[in-house]
């Protein structure tokens, strides 16, 4: 067993989730689990189907959404040409998978913990909730644009407190921001974790800094290698130094990162 490695694994299944105007926009990709020791919620993997021609060069990073002894589940939204081609995968196809990569979310079973998820940023929180020993201490605040059925939120709602807000019309955004501010204040002495679009995380960061709350954000910068070599995914840490999101992150303390 290895801490991390690169293996060819088979697609166990690929399942569309929910319905939007773009067919197959969201899907769950279940892959064979390589011979790893363990993975921690917040970590990610890189995948690249072995049959991909060179026109799409890089693998693509995805946080681990869920997993068991035999499988790893990723949650994917089609946004660009890479994810669009991943959507064409079939059961039995072979994918190069390297991971588990990066650091992981802080887990403090007895601390009241708020998870702030924006859209597809909900993915790592399913794994977080599954591995948490006291999910009654967890609350998820989930802001989304697509119908709820598009996201892996049901598994979370079954064991933790979940509050969802949809952004359907322009004024919804202000309501989401206001609610996020209230919740960050409420959890100022607890633990707050955030994953979502950059403006969403920036807002959380602003509230957390104002309230003196302990917030961790999970970044998802574009990356080529996932192993710390290409230096394409860097962000600036609290001292203004460039650090790799893939190896120093993807999770950073909100008071130690420039978003």
């Amino acid at each position, binding site marked *: 067993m*290895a*801490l*991390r*490695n*690169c293996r060819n694994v088979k697609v166990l299944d690929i399942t569309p989730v929910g319905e939007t105007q773009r067919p197959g926009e969201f899907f769950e990709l279940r892959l064979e689990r390589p011979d790893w020791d363990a993975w921690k919620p917040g970590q990610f993997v890189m995948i*690249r189907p072995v049959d991909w021609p*060179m*026109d*799409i*060069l*890089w*693998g693509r990073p995805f946080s681990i959404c869920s997993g068991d002894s035999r499988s790893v589940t990723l949650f994917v939204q089609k946004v660009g040409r*890479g994810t669009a081609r991943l959507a064409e995968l079939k059961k039995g196809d072979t994918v*190069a998978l*390297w991971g588990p990569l990066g650091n992981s979310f802080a887990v403090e079973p007895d601390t009241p913990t708020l998870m702030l998820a924006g859209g597809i940023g909900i993915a790592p929180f399913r794994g977080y909730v599954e591995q948490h020993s006291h999910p009654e201490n967890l609350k998820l605040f989930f802001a989304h644009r697509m119908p709820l059925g598009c996201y892996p939120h049901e598994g979370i709602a079954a064991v933790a407190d979940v509050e969802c807000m949809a952004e359907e019309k322009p004024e919804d955004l202000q309501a989401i921001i206001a609610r996020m501010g209230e919740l960050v204040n409420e959890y100022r002495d607890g633990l707050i974790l955030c994953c979502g679009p950059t403006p969403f995380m920036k807002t959380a960061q602003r509230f957390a800094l104002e309230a003196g709350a302990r917030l961790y954000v999970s970044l998802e*910068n*574009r*990356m*080529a*290698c*996932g*192993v*710390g*070599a*290409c*230096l*394409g995914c*860097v*962000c600036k840490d609290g001292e*203004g*130094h*460039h650090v790799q999101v893939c*190896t120093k992150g993807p999770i950073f303390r909100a008071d130690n990162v420039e978003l």
Partner: protein
Amino acid sequence: MEVSDLKVSFGGLSMSNPVMTASGTFGFGLEFAPYGDLSRLGGIVAKGISMKPREGNPMPRIAETPCGMLNAIGIQNPGVEAFVKQALPALKRQDVAVVANLYACDAEEFGELAGILSTEDGVAALEVNVSCPNVKEGGAAFGQDPAQIAKVTEAVKKRAGGKPVMLKLSPNVADIATCARAAVEGGADILSLINTLIGMGVDIRNRRPRLANVVGGLSGPAIKPVALRCVHQVCQAVDVPVIGIGGIASAEDALEFIMVGAHAVQVGTANFLRPDFAFTLAEDMAQLLTELCVERLEDFRGSLQLPL
């Protein structure tokens, strides 16, 4: 043919096989240790180092392009002192040739860097980066001027303490053979080529360049034909050994460079396709040579048959 038959020795550099990893695509090597045995590589060219630490360019720094990628990292690195104190001791324990890649703003500083590394027994050779397109000072400016290439090579060679000096040439020049001759006149033991081609990407939706640096270096399979042409021209022009670099993503690609005359190859962007890519390349080359009924790598090198 077995991998053990692929041993190469040229220009003062000896390696267990002709597969090296290119600077800037393999970190300091140890990043890839979880994905394979580093001793299966012939050599590792460490990412470019400068006298002082450099933060590199602003983001975004990379963009995917058809069969390739653009980068404008700007030689982000922790400086030579950190390389010597932190990376080298761990690298030394690996059974693989480690080549340091030097970046500086003038000939004098290049010489100074060479001087520091010349006494490090974990460094098998020095590769001089006179061709980085992503930094405003130095870099490509040297690489485009044959007189400067000769001057920098001489400065490094003088301080290299007997370590082999390889010059990494830029393809962004009118005549690469002239640059190659200048490097040889300056005392280069080996030439490595090519560095990236200067390219650009734009986004018509937000009307911005895809790289904060506006222009960057194009690499990957898209540049292989340019690289092959350059290696061919340089092998025809000079007698020093050449290392072929540019878009190598298979054993066949690697053997194409050997066939036009290269002694070894460096794998760059393909390391991003999957982190274990380079580890199996030498074995694949040995197998392919067997299929081609080639008994010795030397017999294959430079065996390209040109039309009369």
